């Protein structure tokens, strides 16, 4: 069945089709419609889940952790300040190996107060041990929630499904809603090997001496390393059932490209316009839209970018005192690879300033006219 829906509702449908059993959430702009629709679904039993109206995001994640440890499939959604307030508990979910799935709407961090999009909220949580999926369409949002539950539960690692504020969260698109029975086939009920139950008492998350702590973290990393292969495998399985492949990246005309734009989120689709224009004027351009950021898909990024003569990364985020964050990571991934491909790091669209085809034209013009970047950060559209 096809339905026109907003990005936020695509998250709700994803959680509903995944048969989330406990949802705990606190309202924040621009996330609210996600949980409003879920609260309706829970109330009218479209979704047989407990909906907990908590008093803060910190409590929302705490409730998800509590529910998850008993073996319930749990979902929440938040944004920016709310995600930052959860920070302590993000470590708890991943350290406790609990496969909570969360929607995060990318919104800029205050102060000054902003409700518009950039990625600094989620990227500030990159080292918390959560997987991060950056989406560019409402269809991708819905599909990714279902896949995220599968990957999360297989490896006991939580996931964040991320979408841009307003440009995706509040934008309506046609979305194909997968058949519920087929989703059940794809995503069987959550059956963790360990859970909190009176039938088989265990103590969880106690004091861990230096003798054991290190190994817990080693195991989390080792399982993170298994994620890329599992995403490709579960993505193909999804394609077999629903006709849509869910991979690590979305590469557009990259095969023979000499200049590759690296993008993420909705800007990734805007970049295609620039690529098409360049192709029209005879420049071999391509766009690598990064979908999975954590774990970083080294292999596929290296394979695609190694063939290019120049790489231009467009970041809607910044690591103050360093570069754009995707640019950092792409440079790190290309270190020691064949050749010395110049990586141009652009920053655009902070605080929700639009990233338009004209922004990408500027990116491309600069990249084509320079052999190497003049600076670590090349600013697009900033009023200096």
């Amino acid at each position, binding site marked *: 069945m096809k339905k026109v829906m907003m990005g936020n509702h695509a998250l709700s449908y994803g959680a509903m089709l995944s048969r989330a059993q406990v949802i705990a959430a606190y*309202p924040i702009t621009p996330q*609210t419609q996600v949980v409003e629709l879920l609260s309706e679904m829970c*109330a*009218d039993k479209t979704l047989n889940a407990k909906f907990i*109206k908590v008093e*803060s995001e910190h409590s929302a994640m705490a409730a998800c952790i509590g529910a998850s440890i008993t073996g319930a499939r749990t979902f929440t959604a938040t944004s920016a*300040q709310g995600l930052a*307030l959860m920070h302590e508990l993000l470590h708890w979910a991943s350290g406790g190996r609990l496969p909570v799935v969360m929607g995060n709407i990318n919104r800029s961090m205050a102060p000054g107060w902003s409700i518009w999009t950039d990625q600094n909220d989620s990227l500030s949580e990159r080292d918390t041990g959560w997987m991060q999926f950056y989406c560019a369409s409402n269809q991708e949002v819905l599909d990714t929630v279902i896949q995220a539950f599968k990957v999360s539960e297989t490896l006991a690692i939580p996931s964040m499904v991320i979408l841009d504020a307003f440009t995706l969260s509040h934008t309506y698109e046609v979305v194909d809603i997968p058949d519920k029975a087929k989703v059940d086939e794809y995503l069987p009920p959550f059956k963790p090997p360990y859970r909190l139950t009176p039938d088989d008492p265990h103590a969880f998350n106690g004091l861990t001496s230096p003798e054991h702590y290190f190994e817990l973290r080693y195991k989390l990393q080792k399982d993170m390393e298994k994620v890329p292969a599992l995403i490709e495998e579960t993505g193909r399985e999804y394609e077999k059932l629903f006709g849509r492949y869910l991979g690590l990246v979305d590469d557009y005309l990259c095969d023979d490209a000499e200049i590759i734009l690296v993008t993420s989120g909705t800007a990734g689709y805007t970049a295609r316009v620039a690529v098409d224009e360049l192709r029209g004027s005879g420049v071999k351009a391509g766009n690598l839209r990064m979908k999975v950021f954590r774990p970083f898909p080294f292999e596929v990024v290296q394979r695609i970018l190694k063939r290019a003569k120049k790489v231009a990364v467009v970041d809607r985020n910044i690591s103050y005192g360093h570069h754009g964050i995707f640019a950092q990571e792409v440079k790190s991934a290309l270190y020691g690879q064949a050749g010395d491909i110049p990586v141009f790091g652009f920053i655009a669209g902070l605080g929700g300033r639009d990233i338009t085809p004209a922004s990408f034209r500027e990116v491309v013009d600069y990249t084509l006219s320079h052999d190497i970047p003049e600076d670590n950060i090349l600013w697009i559209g900033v009023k200096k």
Partner: protein
Amino acid sequence: MTKETERPEPKNPVEDFLRMDRIPHIWCSGCGIGVVVSSFTDALRKSSFDLNKLAIVSGIGCTGRVAGYIKLDSFHSTHGRPIPFATGLKLANPELKVVVFSGDGDIFGIGGNHFIHAARRNMDMVVICVNNFNYAMTGGQVAPTSPTDANLSTAPYGNFEHPFSLPYLADACGASYVARWTCLHIRRVTKSIQEALDKKGFSLIEVIAPCVTLYARRNRLGDGLNLLKYYYDNSVIQHGADTRTLDIGYQGKMIVGKFIDRERPTFLESMNTHMKKALGDKYVPYGEQP
């Protein structure tokens, strides 16, 4: 066409207290927050203290916008944390009069923990809480003040939780001054704010105000005027009422008035007394007001 005679632009009576470059404000027509702001500015006008020694702190939400609109030293803090920010302001500069101006969701939902501790310590500040029974800025979700049975966007079949009674909570935690009004009681709100500004210790003034766009529309309660009519018909002034009797049921009677006005040592007074006792002459008292 007759030539228009030039007239001076009419001036809003509270204009001197507003940052006019931030106007128009974002509040909906029929909203009660503006009324409370007017009462507040009126109270300031009637008070004699130096406005340079007054600071306003707001959190997040519709009422959280107050700090941005009022032309005094103001601080727009994070969600739920105006009271800790205000505590820092007050303790770093005890000469300041500190007012927290925020909503029910902000102060009693995400920030509830800070409220109970500031009241327990009798921290010297005035908290003005505009209670509109829901998280309005984000679209009318259930708040800790939402009456049982009211319909909200996260309670589409009605709210089954029990709300906080704000005066009862403040009383139990040890506040020095506690009053509740609706935004129909303009002069009484003004008077309470004046009294609270002159009061040492922790004061709470709850002002019940309509959220026409969300709470009232979802519950089909009519427009701002209908809600003021409801306040008129259903609020009962009962000064000194037992705070255990102040629950607000859905569209029920509301007991309003000044419930608590008592003397308790403030945080700084307690600290100075205790430390003087412990350290004797070695202790230099901090921030004592004349």
